[in-house]
């Protein structure tokens, strides 16, 4: 019935006979819904490129200012100190692996870090590991989120292979990630006084609140023959073991930083910070590097120029393109909608 109305009287009838829904459905089936048909004209092209230039260059500059020191008032200061080689005593440097595995040798070591620029609190302390594949599939999968939340109540730890149990008793927290917990420790001393390091709130709040159980205590951890990384205090529930929580957020790339703590005092230019560290963690067997990083942060996070450079580059290219197209448009202007460009009007067309 409807069809007949449509076919005889077309749109007009529909408009009268029925409501908006039917009309728009009719328009849909006839493929004549109102549509916007943008056509890329030279004017638009130039405008778009100009716009991009105008947006990206300032954004890039602002970004650079936030992270980089070249611009006058830099915001982010970063001090990086690689200590993995220097902290091994000279005689042991030939065989660093046996040095690090020898528990009888004390592993303390002192480093001096000179502040070359004023650092405003909070100053974030990171340890950086290079060539450490925390994103290896075997490694990443070797954990049990349910066990972290429920502790020993959760029995199925098969996902934690190969570190799931020891002496037929389950390990809490199980898995390779926890087992290989980073265990270097750092103490910071400025001008003879200890710089207090705040090691709270270094992990995600949701991780502490919902992923790591408040009543789950480490159990049977690092009791086996093979001891990987750090040990955990069995008195403290997992939700408060922030080192572990940070460590268990596996990094995406083989070179990564992890937050160690915050110094909540400003550091002045030419301050020298003495770092007393325990060089426990074995990166020597696989040639990994260990670095200690002190860094302030801006609204954009740490010191990273890539974004700023990219923005400026894109902005400049856009401006250049805008100019090129403008020149081309002036010189070789193609009349808009010119029929002579249609193939059947060109002579070469053969049909």
């Amino acid at each position: 019935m409807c069809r007949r109305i449509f076919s005889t009287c077309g749109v007009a009838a529909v408009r009268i006979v029925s409501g908006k829904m039917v009309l728009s459905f009719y328009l849909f089936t006839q493929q004549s819904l109102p549509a916007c048909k943008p056509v890329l004209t030279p004017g638009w092209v130039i405008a778009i490129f100009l716009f991009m230039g105008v947006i990206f260059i300032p954004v890039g500059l602002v970004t650079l200012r936030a992270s980089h020191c070249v611009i006058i008032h830099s915001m982010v200061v970063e001090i990086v100190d690689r200590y993995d080689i220097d902290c091994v005593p000279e005689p042991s440097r030939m065989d660093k692996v046996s040095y690090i595995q020898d528990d009888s040798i004390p592993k303390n070591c002192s480093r001096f870090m000179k502040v070359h620029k004023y650092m405003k609190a909070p100053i974030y302390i990171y340890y950086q590991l290079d060539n450490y594949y925390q994103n290896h599939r075997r490694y990443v999968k070797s954990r049990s989120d349910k066990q972290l939340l429920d502790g020993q109540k959760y029995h199925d730890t098969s996902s934690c292979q190969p570190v799931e149990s020891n002496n037929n008793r389950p390990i809490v927290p199980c898995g390779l990630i926890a087992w290989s917990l980073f265990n270097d420790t750092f103490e910071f001393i400025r001008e003879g006084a200890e710089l207090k390091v705040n090691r709270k709130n270094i992990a995600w709040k949701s991780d502490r609140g919902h992923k790591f159980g408040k009543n789950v205590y480490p159990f049977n951890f690092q009791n086996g023959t093979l001891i990987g990384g750090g040990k955990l205090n069995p008195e403290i529930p997992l939700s408060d073991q922030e080192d572990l929580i940070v460590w268990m957020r596996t990094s995406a790339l083989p070179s990564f930083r992890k937050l160690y703590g915050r110094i909540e005092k400003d550091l002045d230019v030419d301050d020298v910070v003495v770092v007393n560290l325990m060089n426990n963690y074995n990166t020597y067997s696989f040639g990994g590097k260990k670095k200690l990083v002190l860094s302030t942060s801006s609204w954009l996070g740490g010191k990273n120029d890539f974004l700023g450079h990219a923005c400026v580059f894109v902005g400049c290219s856009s401006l250049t393109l805008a100019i090129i197209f403008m020149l081309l448009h002036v010189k070789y202007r193609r009349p808009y909608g010119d029929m002579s460009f249609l193939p059947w009007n060109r002579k070469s067309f053969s049909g």
Partner: protein
Amino acid sequence: MVAESSRKRKGKIRWSKLYSFAACFRPLTSKDRLAARELIGQPGFSRVVFCNEPHLHKRKPYKYPYNYISTTKYNVLTFLPRALFEQFRRVANFYFLLAAIFSLFSLAPFSRASLIAPLVFVVGISMLKEAVEDWHRFLQDLDVNNRTVKTHISNGVFVDKLWKELRVGDVVKVNKGEYFPSDLLLLSSGNEDGVCYVETMNLDGETNLKIKRCLEASLCLNEDEEFSKFKATVHCEDPNPNLYTFVGNIEFEKESYPLSPSQLLLRDSKLRNTDYIYGVVIFSGHDTKAVRNSTRSPSKRSRIERKMDHIIYILFSMLVLVSLVSSFGSLLYLRQDMVDWWYLQLPDDNKVNDLDDSNSEKYDDRFFNPSKPVQSAGLQFIRALILYGYLIPISLYVSIEVVKVLQTMLINKDIELYDDVTCKSVQARTSNLNEELGQVEMILSDKTGTLTCNQMEFRKCSIAGVSYGGDITEVDLAASMRMNADFEPFEFSIDETDGATRSFEPFEFSVSSFSAQNWNARLTKTEGPVIKGFNFRDDRLTNKNWIHGSNLFDITMFFRVMALCHTGIPLEDDNHKTDKLSYEAESPEEVSFLIASQEFGFQFCRRTQSLMVLKEFDLSSMKEVEREYKLLNLLEFSSSRKRMSVIVSNEDGQIFLLCKGADSIIFERLADNGRAYEQATTMHLSSYAEDGLRTLAFAYRTIEAAEYESWNTIFTQAKATIGPEREELLEQASETIEKDLILLGVVAVEDKLQKGVPECIDKLAQAGLKIWLLTGDKRETAINIGFACSLLRQDMKQFHLSLSRDAESNNQVKDMKEDILQQIESSYKMVCEERNKEAPFGLVIDGKALEIALRGDVKDEFLQLAVNCASVICCRVSPKQKALITRLVKQYTGKTTLAIGDGANDVGMIQEADIGVGISGMEGMQAVMASDFSLPQFRFLERLLIVHGHWCYQRLSKMVLYFVYKNVAFGLTLFYYELYTSFSGEVLYDDWYMTMFNVMLTSLPVIALGVLEQDVSSDICLQFPALYQQGPRNVHFSWSRIIGWILNGVVSSLVIFLANIYILSPTAMRENGFVADIDSLGATTYTCIIWTVNCQIALITSHFTWIQHLSIWGSILLWYIFLLVYGALPPNFSGNAFQVLVEGIGPAPLYWMITVLVVVVSLLPYFIHIVIQRSYFPMDDHIIQEMEQCYKKYDVRDNEMWVREQRNSQRSTRIGFSARVDAKILSFNQQLQQKKLSIYRSVTNSPIYRSITTSPFS
């Protein structure tokens, strides 16, 4: 012995007698018949049918199938295995099946659900579609199977029985107008002589009725009661697909009679002109010849889809390549570095050797087993194959299916493609070929029922040298309008040859009325009621005005020929409101003559065996009188004689021979005193032929009684002759009497074209399509239609390929081949010589010549010639040849062909062509059933191809390319990440992100693009048919484009991945010092991908309705919503993605800035590409889009420039209406010039002018 030979002779005599009545079938020669008799009982001829005893056929060995017919592909049991098999024949599906199986053995990097669910979804949807299509087939079968027919049960009682319940041996009664339920043996008919008429249009497309005749022995069985005791046994051939043969005999009342095809009524043909027949079911269900003849329609795939397979192969090789790289890299790491990574607790190479067996067996991580690195690498390879599976777009197939179904729906719903008359609209019967519609290069068209309505209209006649019904034709009209548009209005008139002066009013038309509708409206404007088959307007003849004319005798004779020289019969009308009769005859031409003569006052009212009664207008009494004419002889029409005559005597005893026939035949038989009108008539003939009208010449002679008597004896003798020489004798006899004729005039009937056919052909020609006409009709008719459809015109050089008489008579294949080859070569030479000139060529070839021309060694030459001709007309071709031509053309040219037809004779062609189109307006359904698209009218082909085809083509190609892009862009980021994880197979993204990618986050915009994208609107498509050429030239789906899109994907993935890892690592990403872990990086990268691919599709789209906006921007929004919801789920479920947006990346300005930057940069290469292309190398659609934009500001129709440009854009075509108009304009101009000249001359030559010029006063 004696008895048997006498019986044989008896049989022979009976046969000959039969033949004298029905000339339709060549009788079996006695030799053939003997052979047939010997065949019975041999293998292949073993069928036994017990007539009227169907119960005997319930048990072996005479068990034959019921009359049930099934055309479905699957049944309930076979559906699952077969449909699954069909699905997994697709490479991609099979790959995903393997991936799903591997996932069961924990080999896969993803969870099982995320691998199996999409596969089940994709395969499920495809299978659902198959099931629905098959269900429709089943319903159609049900409809046919549940028709009823009167069937004899016992004691002469006939009851309605369903077709499917019929059994071999059943006696059925079929009434007039009904279809035969199965192959029947004709026992008797409602006519006394046991004759019945059958329409076989559904079987072979021939429109004339066929005569079938029962055996004399069974003639008496014409009452229901007779069948209570009827019993007979038929021995005949086994079921076979041969429509024209039937061998068998019937044992009836202890005598055996031979059977022939003329007793066999085939399923799918229809009873006409006969009240009822009785028949016995011989073949039922799938044994019937019609069903055996039908081939299952092949599943067709479009070019784009075939090319898509190649793309899939490319992607597969990419997949295998990156997987190899991955597994090789993993092997290297495993052998060299990985054992040193103590944090992985891999067993040390050396230690493993020391470990006892139990320990090494316990070691279960097979992917990283340093003791078996090669095995591990192998496993890694398999894992990588699955991991990078995102390179293969799994949802591509399902998206395409969805899009195509929606496209189909939109095509079906198009109001412009709805026919008010038949209340039918276009039906896309398969959704596979939508985009193929946009790539058609060649149309092979049937004639009857497709281009023409199979309805003859009496249009013009020329009586005694005066042309009547001379109306201006469409071409004249259009030409004058075009001239008017080009030049200043110029008034002139053409003296019509009949003396009546008609001025050309159309010159007053303005440009605005330059449209097909207008011509039609003007042309079909009729005064008074429309009479079917009679489209003649001339006041001098109608309403009996002819009595005031001169040459009254010739005019009356002319009408008498029209009313008497035919084989038709009047039908009794049920309602006697009017005194007009309707007629039925073997050909529609004759019907139109009868109707016309009735209109002129010569009503043919009755016919008996030897008498014809006319209601004539008597001139002397000025009253209508009934006159009886005694029918003395009827010299039948045959294709070789090309004429037909009747010899009648009127009430005064005068004997006339009334003759009608092809003009050439009649003209050579005229008496010297009968050529009075020859010259004028010839002129009219040529003008009629130019308009595509079919002409027949009428002539008569009076015969002296004595001459008749002597001739009649010869003729009767000839008729009584038995044997092959009979025909020759008859022809000779006819020859002697059909001479010294007196020409009366010619009639022109129009094989009425369907509405809008010439305009449609014109548009299609402008779109660059080639149109071939394949018809089973005779050459003259085909050429007429060629003219009417503007496929041929007078200034076209025509080649006629046909067998010369010598070659044909020799019947030597070699001779015929040489003959044809010679013709082809000479024609081709001419084509080559004149190619530079504008003159187009037309090729006309008939069936016999075609049969030779299509043989192996000649066909290449033939096709070469044919392809070079602007139009090709093949006449007298059999259904098989139609299919063969289609296949050869398809193979030889490699172009996409579309075959369109309406009858069962076109089924082969429809199935063979890339796209088969059936005309659904007619009664027969075979063509529609076999077709991919069904149209109610031929003219809809224009919109179907030029609008929908074009749209679907560019939609689908855009969609597929985008799909490839999107999956490459996404899949490669997975691979790049592998490089940073020591090829361990870790995935950057959460499983659920990955699953969502193809299913939710990027699917809707693609579907919206595939369904709603329009490069230009439908009006503009129709105004610029040349835009269609994009499809055949395949500009949107060329290899360069495909490679370009793959590269674009590679670039995008690189930009996205590198920007993310360099910006986010290793420093903090937020002010509070947090660094990005694997999940933050994953979510950020994924956000960039979602933005990029969705913005990319926004760049591709050129037609934004709210649906596109909603789907594109909605998809992006959906991603954030998903991330929010997923992050809010308890960590047990969401894992590390817990609160990732809210707590991790969301608060970081860096995250949002990365998104903006990455999207802009990754789209930049494509953007620059399209800017350059649009600005400096624009494509057709770009320019037309610009024009559309430009002129939108003004009113499109009023803009003079628009009209001019549009006209310019019409390619100068070689065929079609426009081309004809062009030619006509040329000739008009010449006429004008001449006329001016002659006026000038006449003025200058006139004495007044002279006197003026020479007068001393000036």
